[in-house]
């Protein structure tokens, strides 16, 4: 099962195991990782699962959909490596992925 390393804005780290096919948002929520909300349940409608994907991992991800790009545009603390974590499905090659979390989601 792929592992995800979440790094909070204050530097605290948490490594959790996710299931292939589940999203990073779901994995965070199922393990009560703080800082990821995911209110709309993964429907790309709320932009409260914003995270910064470590640049080393960015190229391993599927490209953003247009929906995700415009939702990200509405977030507060967007960076070049911003993604909505509900749109990233875990695969074996994402084992070890590092996701940093913004200071706030809204």
């Amino acid at each position, binding site marked *: 099962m792929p592992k995800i390393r979440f790094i909070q804005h204050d530097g605290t780290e948490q490594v959790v195991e996710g299931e292939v096919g589940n999203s990073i948002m779901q994995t965070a*929520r*199922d393990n*009560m990782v*703080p800082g990821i909300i995911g*209110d*709309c*349940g993964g*429907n790309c*409608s*709320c*932009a409260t699962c914003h995270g910064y994907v470590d640049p080393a991992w960015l190229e391993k991800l599927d490209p953003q959909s247009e*929906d995700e790009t*415009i*939702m990200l*545009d*509405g*977030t*507060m603390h967007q960076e070049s490596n911003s993604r909505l974590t509900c749109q990233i499905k875990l695969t074996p090659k994402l084992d070890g992925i590092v996701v940093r979390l913004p200071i706030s989601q*809204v």
Partner: protein
Amino acid sequence: MTPKTIAIIGAGQAGLQVAASLRELRYEGRVVLLGDEPHAPYQRPPLSKGYLSGDVSAAQVALRPDAFFANFRIELIRNKRAVAIDRVRRMVGLEDDSVVEYDHLVLATGARNRPLPVPGADLQNVYFLRTLDEAAVLREKMAAAKNVVVIGAGFIGLEFAASAAKQGLSVTVLDVAERPMARAVSRVMSSVCAREHEKLGVRLLFNTQVMRLLGEPGVVRGIETVDGRTLPADLVVIGIGVVPNIELAATCDLMIEDGIVVDEFLQTSDPNISAIGDVAAHPSDYNHGQRVRLESVQNAIDQARCVAARLVGKPAAYQALPWFWSHQSHLHLQMTGLRTTDCQEALRGDPNGTAFSVYLFREGRLVCVESLNRPADHMLARRLLASRTAVTPAQAADTSFELKSLLAS
């Protein structure tokens, strides 16, 4: 004092969120989550969309995996209806005569489908769409259906109609109002959505209603409208709204008015009982301080968080900004704020296309924004409304004006 046992009646989006938020806030006491469905808590939004198309499985609609409940010591009791509340002894009675004691009780009993009071509504192949079981049957029946009639052009009716049309079924939607989603969105948003549904091949009939459902023997074959039309149907879906599940609260004499009446802290007339979600009639700043009952995921989740925080000793009045979404095929509709019928409107973008927003003003103040395929407008609108930023109709209508610049940085 922090309650030792918190019981939650209703294991939907709101009930589950109370349990999850309590643990997130490091509440150490006992949490009992009572649901009357056989399933663990699940999401409803995909049931009228991805679940019907097969893109989303039953396992994927679960709000949390089974292990979550054990991992975080949430006692989930499924498939048992709560039938009585003893407020003096602080006990909930379940239908199998078992009892759950509580120090604090959260009512998240939700709502149920409003029945259609016409002859033939009990025929076979006539369905509602609210629960996972209902959606499962409907998904199966859609595979064999040809002519679908949807009664009610609200969110559920239109989401279902779009799903059915995409599967190649012949779909007719009828509504007593003169336009779709009449109570929820502006006239211009209604008309654009109507036009787009017609492009999908959905036939829309307004200002009419069903008089009876026709069937033989026992199975629906068509419907007859009050103005004398007969439409063939081998599948009928009824989506004419919901009624809040207030009965349990009423039998123990909590104050009821449309929903269960709560104060700004979401407390009922009994300080040991809170009510949240679809069933809670709560005062809202976005509704002139008057009570309102909102049926939405956002309302369920934010009210759950508000109550969980109070129960761990961090009380705050509920002030979350309402927002909502509905996906109908290529129409991604998002709304925030609360509208009234007497609003001044400003359009941003072109309603002849499929991407524009409607900004609604009352007494010169922005009160609501409806966005169609313009999620960035929606996200920004949430920030403008939550911060009560002054916006003029002229600024809203001017696409060359950056609304973002109005926000204090």
